[in-house]
């Protein structure tokens, strides 16, 4: 079977429980089991080839640009780990089916489990370190889900997050490490990396890469100082612990170290970092395990210890040590998984995992007792079980070290001693001793489904112990060959003769037994001793980290608009000044225009009005009047400086804006209070002054220099009449050269009106509507709303303004004006009517559908543009001609006029809809609607209402 398929099968299996769970728990379990079994068989099919020393590879290019390829390989190491993962996985699936209760959503469990299994399989089978990283992180994620599976348990949630955080952090470090490694080696393919050991170890980046990769491996394999997450991950259901935290996930780090062993090992850095970390972990884990009352806690720390052991062996960097490491991986997986399952059975049946509450289960649960005892003895390293074999090998290697031999010997023996102690304690304090009366449940042996899996493993423990070479030797050889890169043939014997290792072992067993005897006083001392609690520290760190982040965020982004805009302004000024100063400004090329007295006066007025505006901005109506002055002068300035169109537009926009602001100001407070400190005002004034000076200087510098190249507008002046058919170049630009801009612009205006309308609709509902209805004006109001003379004058002004609007619209192409200004003029005229006779009265008489005007405007402009298509020309290509109708004078008809009509309609609709919406708010808050056009008609004649 293709390696890719093997890796894919568990993922495919992950889909099954979700689909099949309605058919029952057994079906789901069976489906997963089948997928796993298939994958296992598929893996084993390759055994003969591997035994011949071949490496099976397959895969395809995924992202060849950076060398991320979906390459798989099966060699001895992959075979070993694959077998562990899939084999124990199969047992776990069986075990979990019986372990989980009816209320647990088992489908979800199997999905997670299969995801995890797939990720692990991927790690061990893949041949590309980037690809490996993907599976690596996937194991972190799926284990997060598995640990947090019992979501009602706080320990589960916290443990899951802790595991995710620690392994995730490690994973990130590893990403960096792997990328560096790949950069050094020039490839991300494992096979090529393994072949370029010399290049890698000679690189100045070697240490960095090594440390980063090791951080990844250590976090995953719970090495000191990252070991603390593993015990807390034990909150997961026991099948998870048995699977992830004994057999598979935690071994991923070991796998990686083994995988990269040929490329990375053998240097002093490797030796000191890896082996010392392993040693410390081994010792520390074993020591703490002695004092753990929780069965799973004990096993967890023992796992930490054993992982340390293997790490240490890998760190030695010798081939023999590597063999020992590989062998211990197998052994540890068998006995530790069996032990976890046993612990799970005890928990399941007795209702507790606390050693203090247990004891004397030997009679009640004989099968469990046998299984547990065998496994525990193996863990203690008692001959003839498999644990003994690998431990002997470890001690032998320690004895043959070149550096730090004594330290390692003493500490390794000590660790073995503790290991014996807690293993024996597991047997003695759980199964032996007097039977108790008050177990939480009534303990008895479980059904076959629960014990067959650990039982199988216990048998393996014994078999490997007795016949190591036949049962496991070939596997060890194959994987050791893969690890070291050199063909290995190991010979494992129970009896090596009396050597240092045996003596150390004997010391450890004897010492362990003695220690167990002294357990009670030791435990008391342990309980009394102050010791750092990893979880508390971690939680505090995370909590404080979160708080710090929150605080920092809150400091930076505190919702203050002033700060945001100040940051913007300062950035702009700073960057602008930087850019200006790093460039070179050319010489001044334009003479200054003379300053005439009247413009000087206008300038003076502008400056004064601007200054007053800042000074008096708290008196809002006054500020509006001052804005009006500034706008007036700006538009006159435009007129003075040869821009009549701009003057027209500016002044008409200005008045609409003022009306808009007045409508809004009706509700807003009429004055702004002093709320800011002097200091803030000072800072703001400083920023403002800086910006003003900067921008003014830029403008001045710009105006005194000519264009760097001829501006494109020369062409426009030349062709405006010839090809655009209009003498007002600005208008021709607007409706023809850059008609597309105008198309966007009228859309903006239309959208603005739609937004305003939509917002009004929202405001007129719900809470704000009630507020509005209860609204009391602050203002003293005059008596007449629609003064007679105003009404009458408007009757005359409105038609006149309409005529003016038509004129401006028609003349726009040749003289200042155009659809936009015309639209505004008509809108202003209509507004005048609204002001004079009131909203309701006016609205009743002229139900212009403003929405439709906007829509029609946009459509008209677009359709005019599209019309050019039928001429085979692009969008908005204009055409024009002169037509003569009888009686009428010759007149020009340009398609641009259709476009301008669109502009006109859109502007009219938009302005009216916007102001209309605003005044609807006021009406909502008001009381009455007028029926007559004016407040009082002297003729006292009231017309009938429509």
């Amino acid at each position, binding site marked *: 079977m293709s390696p890719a398929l093997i890796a894919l099968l568990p993922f495919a299996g992950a889909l099954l429980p979700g689909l099949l769970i309605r058919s029952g728990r057994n079906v789901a379990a069976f489906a997963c089991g089948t997928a796993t079994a298939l994958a296992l068989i598929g893996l084993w099919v390759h055994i003969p080839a591997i035994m011949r020393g071949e490496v099976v590879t397959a895969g395809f290019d995924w992202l060849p640009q950076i060398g991320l390829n979906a390459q798989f390989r099966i060699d001895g190491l992959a075979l070993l780990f694959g077998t562990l993962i899939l084999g124990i996985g199969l047992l776990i699936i069986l075990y979990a089916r019986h372990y989980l209760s009816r209320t647990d959503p088992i489908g979800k469990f199997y999905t997670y489990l299969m995801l995890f299994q797939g990720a692990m399989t991927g790690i061990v089978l893949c041949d590309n370190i980037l690809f490996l990283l993907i599976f690596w992180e996937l194991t972190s994620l799926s284990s997060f889900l598995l640990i947090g599976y019992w979501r009602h348990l706080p320990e589960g949630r916290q443990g899951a997050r802790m595991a995710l955080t620690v392994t995730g952090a490690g994973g990130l470090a590893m990403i960096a490490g792997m990328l560096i490694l790949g950069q050094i080696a020039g490839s991300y393919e494992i096979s090529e990396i393994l072949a370029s050991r010399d290049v890698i170890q000679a690189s100045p980046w070697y240490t960095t890469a090594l440390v980063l990769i090791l951080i990844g491996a250590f976090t995953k394999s719970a090495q000191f100082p990252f070991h603390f997450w593993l015990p807390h991950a034990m909150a997961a259901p026991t099948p998870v612990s048995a699977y992830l935290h004994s057999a598979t996930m935690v071994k991923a780090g070991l796998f990686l170290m083994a995988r990269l062993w040929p490329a990375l090992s053998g240097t002093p850095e490797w030796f000191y970092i890896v082996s010392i970390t392993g040693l410390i972990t081994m010792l520390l884990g074993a020591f703490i395990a002695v004092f753990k009352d929780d069965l799973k806690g004990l096993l967890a720390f023992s796992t930490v210890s054993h992982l340390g052991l293997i790490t240490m062996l890998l760190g030695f960097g010798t081939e023999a040590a590597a063999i020992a490491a590989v062998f211990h991986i197998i052994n540890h997986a068998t006995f530790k998984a069996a032990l976890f399952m046993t612990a799970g059975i005890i928990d399941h049946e007795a209702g507790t995992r606390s050693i203090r509450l247990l004891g004397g289960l030997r009679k009640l649960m004989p099968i469990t007792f046998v299984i547990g005892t065998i496994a525990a003895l193996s863990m203690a390293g008692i001959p003839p079980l498999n644990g003994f074999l690998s431990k002997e090998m470890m001690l032998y290697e320690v004895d043959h070290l070149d550096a730090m031999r004594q330290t390692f010997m003493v500490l390794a023996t000590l660790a073995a001693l503790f290991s014996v102690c807690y293993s024996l304690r597991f047997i003695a304090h759980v199964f032996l001793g007097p039977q108790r009366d008050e177990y939480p449940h009534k303990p008895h042996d479980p059904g076959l489904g629960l014990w067959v899996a650990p039982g199988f493993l216990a048998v393996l423990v014994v078999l490997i112990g007795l016949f190591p070479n036949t049962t496991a030797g070939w596997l060890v050889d194959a994987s050791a060959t893969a690890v070291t890169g050199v063909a290995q043939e190991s010979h494992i014997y129970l009896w090596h003769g009396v050597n240092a290792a045996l003596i150390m072992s004997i010391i450890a067993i004897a010492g362990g037994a003695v220690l167990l005897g002294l357990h009670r006083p030791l435990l008391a001392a342990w309980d009394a001793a102050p010791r750092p609690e990893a979880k508390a520290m971690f939680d505090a760190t995370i909590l404080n980290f979160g708080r710090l982040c929150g605080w920092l965020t809150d400091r930076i982004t505190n919702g203050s608009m002033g700060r945001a805009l100040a940051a913007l302004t300062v950035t702009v000024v700073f960057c602008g000044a930087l850019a200006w100063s790093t460039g070179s400004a050319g010489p001044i090329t334009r003479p200054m225009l003379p300053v005439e007295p009247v413009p000087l006066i206008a300038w003076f007025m502008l400056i004064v009005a601007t200054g007053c505006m800042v000074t008096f901005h708290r008196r809002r109506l006054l500020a509006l009047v001052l804005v009006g002055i500034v706008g007036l002068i700006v538009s006159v300035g435009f007129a003075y400086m040869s821009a009549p169109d701009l003057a027209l537009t500016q002044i008409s926009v200005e008045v609409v804006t003022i009306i808009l602001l007045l409508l809004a100001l009706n509700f807003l407070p009429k004055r702004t209070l002093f709320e800011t400190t002097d200091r803030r005002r000072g800072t703001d004034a400083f920023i403002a002054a800086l910006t003003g000076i900067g921008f003014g200087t830029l403008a001045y510098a710009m105006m005194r220099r000519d264009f760097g190249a001829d501006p494109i507008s020369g062409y426009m002046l030349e062709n405006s009449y010839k090809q655009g058919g209009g003498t007002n170049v600005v208008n021709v630009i607007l409706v023809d050269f850059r008609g597309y801009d105008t198309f966007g612009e009228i859309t903006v205006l239309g959208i603005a009106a739609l937004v305003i309308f939509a917002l009004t609709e929202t405001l007129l509902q719900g809470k704000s509507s009630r507020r509005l209805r209860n609204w009391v004006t602050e203002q003293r109001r005059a008596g007449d*709303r629609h003064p007679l003379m105003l009404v009458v004058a408007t009757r005359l002004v409105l038609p006149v303004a309409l005529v003016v609007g038509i004129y401006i619209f028609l003349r726009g192409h040749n003289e200042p004006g155009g659809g936009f200004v015309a639209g505004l003029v008509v809108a202003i005229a209509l507004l005048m009517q609204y002001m004079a006779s009131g909203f309701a009265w006016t609205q009743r008489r002229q139900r212009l559908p*403003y929405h439709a005007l906007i829509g029609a405007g946009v459509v008209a402009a677009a359709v005019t543009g599209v019309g050019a298509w039928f001429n085979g020309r692009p969008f908005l290509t204009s055409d024009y001609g002169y037509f003569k109708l009888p009686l009428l004078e010759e007149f020009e008809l340009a398609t641009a006029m259709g476009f301008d009509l669109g502009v006109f309609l859109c502007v009219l609709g938009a302005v009216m809809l916007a102001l209309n919406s605003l005044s609807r708010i006021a009406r909502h808050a008001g009381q009455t609607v007028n029926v007559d056009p004016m407040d009082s008609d002297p003729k006292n004649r009231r017309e009938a209402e429509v």
Partner: protein
Amino acid sequence: MELIAEILISIILVVAGIFGLVGSYGLVKLPDAMTRLHAPTKAATLGVGGVLIASLIWFLVLSEHHASWHELLITILIFLTAPITGLMIAKSNLHLTWLPEDLPQPPNGGQWATFDEGKIPPALQEEHDPESLRGD
């Protein structure tokens, strides 16, 4: 002919300028809001009117462009609107600074419209009908 027009224009312009200035000066000089209202609405109106007339003559007689009657239009517009602005500002003044007691009362009783506070006749009141005035 052209000389006459030139002289005429110059005179009108000078006069208009003086009136314009006087109007604005009155705005500063006169003592209270109501009196200030007089100065600009008149003098400025005639000032601008003068300028417009001058411009009219200029374009009719002297300009290189064809004759233009535009200024007449603007004059009409200003003369049409000036009284209304004056009225509205006067009303604002009354509203802001005058009490009805300080004013002469209308002969037939009642009150000046500006002070007719809150006395909207019941006949003019009407219920809300929101959907009819949405404006779409």
